[in-house]
């Protein structure tokens, strides 16, 4: 990564709370979030609902002001970057006038910028040129989402932010939408997308940022996240008297013994199973594969203890 380039996004120490504490109490939606995205990266902002993804995106776009912290986009304030057409966003819902046509919507958006891409070019790139004369209210959810994408393209922004762009789309709609985004990203646009779908983050991002309860719990390439989750878990019943024998077991990531049940996380489950069966009284052996979903749940689940997960995984990832 070149150090000379201005980051596409630089967010430092973002905090945001909602509610004044009168009747609903204070919701601390974002707590100390730092994020730097370099030009050309495609970043998935992955986390469960309520993790603070949309709140963070709103602050990056300048739609809401952080309680603490700062945001810059290509070295400008969010408002300055918007005025320069350097950032655009595809929001989850809304943002469309129902009573005008698809083409008029893009024309209107383009008219706000001093220079913009030709309307038909943008419609074609979003794959909606053939429905350009259709009223927005007659468009399907997927078509409306591609219209939002077309609107985002008019200023030819260096940074495109998508907030859960495929929520409510069917499988084919999601696939078509991502094909359009991917084709576009190959031209070198920086893309940040929020999602709670693991497969989307896995398939379309170069880098995955896992958020939970308003802060980042893991940050790495999709491959790194997968490595983290690779390996298998071996479970077996083991007589307490045999616990001393485990000292001779092949090295494992973690070994837990609780209530007569042994749990071993390992990259080489065959060796562990062979050892347990040959050298100990282990029985009822189960072997399960870890997957991205398990890592996701472990890192972002509500029962995960903040800090502890970060301590465990940050070293591997960051």
């Amino acid at each position, binding site marked *: *990564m*070149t150090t000379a*380039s201005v980051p*596409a996004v630089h967010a430092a120490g973002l905090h945001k709370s909602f509610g004044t504490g009168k009747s609903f109490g204070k919701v601390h939606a974002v707590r100390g979030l730092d994020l730097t995205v*370099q*030009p*050309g990266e495609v970043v998935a902002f992955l986390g469960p609902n309520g993790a603070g993804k949309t709140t963070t995106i709103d602050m990056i*776009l*300048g*739609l*809401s002001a952080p309680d603490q912290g700062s945001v810059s986009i*290509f070295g400008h304030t969010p408002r*300055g970057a*918007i*005025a*320069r*057409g*350097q950032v*655009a*966003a595809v*929001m989850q*819902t*809304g*943002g*469309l*006038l*129902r*009573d*005008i046509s698809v083409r*008029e919507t893009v*024309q*209107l*958006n*383009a*008219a*706000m*910028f*001093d*220079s913009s891409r030709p309307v038909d070019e943008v419609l074609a790139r979003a794959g909606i040129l053939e429905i350009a004369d259709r009223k927005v209210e007659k468009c399907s959810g997927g078509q409306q989402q591609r219209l939002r994408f077309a*609107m985002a393209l008019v200023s030819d922004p*260096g940074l495109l932010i998508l907030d859960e762009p495929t929520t409510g789309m069917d499988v084919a709609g999601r696939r078509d939408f991502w094909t359009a985004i991917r084709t576009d990203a190959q*031209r*070198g*646009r*920086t893309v940040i997308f929020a999602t709670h779908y693991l497969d989307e983050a896995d398939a379309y991002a170069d880098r995955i940022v896992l958020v939970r309860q308003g802060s980042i719990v893991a940050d790495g390439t999709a491959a790194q996240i997968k490595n983290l989750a690779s390996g298998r878990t071996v479970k077996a019943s083991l007589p307490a008297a045999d616990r001393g024998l485990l000292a001779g077991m092949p090295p494992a990531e973690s070994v837990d013994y609780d209530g007569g049940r042994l749990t071993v996380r390992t990259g080489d489950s065959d060796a562990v199973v062979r050892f347990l069966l040959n050298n100990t009284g282990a029985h009822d052996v189960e072997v399960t594969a870890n997957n991205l979903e398990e890592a996701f749940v472990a890192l972002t689940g509500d029962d995960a203890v903040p800090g502890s997960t970060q301590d465990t995984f940050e070293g591997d990832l960051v």
Partner: protein
Amino acid sequence: MSTATVRQERKPSAGGVNRTFLWIEIKRMLRNRRTIMFTVFMPAVFFFIFGLSNKDKLLPNGHSYGQYILISLTVYAAMTAATGAGSQVAVERAQGWSRQLRLTPLLPGAYIAVKAMAALTLSLVAVVAQFIIGALAGVTMDAGTWLTAGLAAWLGSLVFAALGLFVGYLMPSQNVMQILGPVLAILAMLGGLFMPIEIMGETFGNIAKFTPAYGIGQLARSPITGEFDWAWTVNVFTWLAIFVAGAAMAFRRDTKRV
């Protein structure tokens, strides 16, 4: 990293009023059947019901009934048109369009200016339509009267464009006009647009003088009454100031919250 990401520094867009925006706004309003019903059809029906049969009679105050009712209903049509146009911001907020616009260089002031211009376009349509209907029905006035009355009704509607914006930013409703419609009818009545305030009785007559449609109505009818009072102008500008201030306040509150 692709070279396509290397971008030369761009200039910020001006974000001012632009023709495409204004034109699409006007098209949207003229395509809206409900708007046209409120601004052209309904005042026309009122004129046929209340004005047509009596158009050659004289009012108790000695003026032509036909002229009086036509000008008054034209003011009513213009104010309904402008309020309706302004209140569309409520619909646009509900649809998330205002939020979307905040992701463009458009300045908030330019948005308000376009809304006001679109409202004036619609109220001009209302004024012209009403006058054509009146003329076809046989109401005659001299050119100066048509012009003065028309200009007063048209420009006075700016007060109600501001009212529409004010209420549009204040209320979350998609159907803001369903609430504003009856309010406008009451204001029109109190402003002497449905009947001369002289026949309302003293108490109502005194209250009427301080309501927002009164000044515009009096000014628009001044060519036929031959009267003029600075208090009417003060009435118009005071209400304009109140509604503009209200709209600005509600707008600021709105953008803070979103």
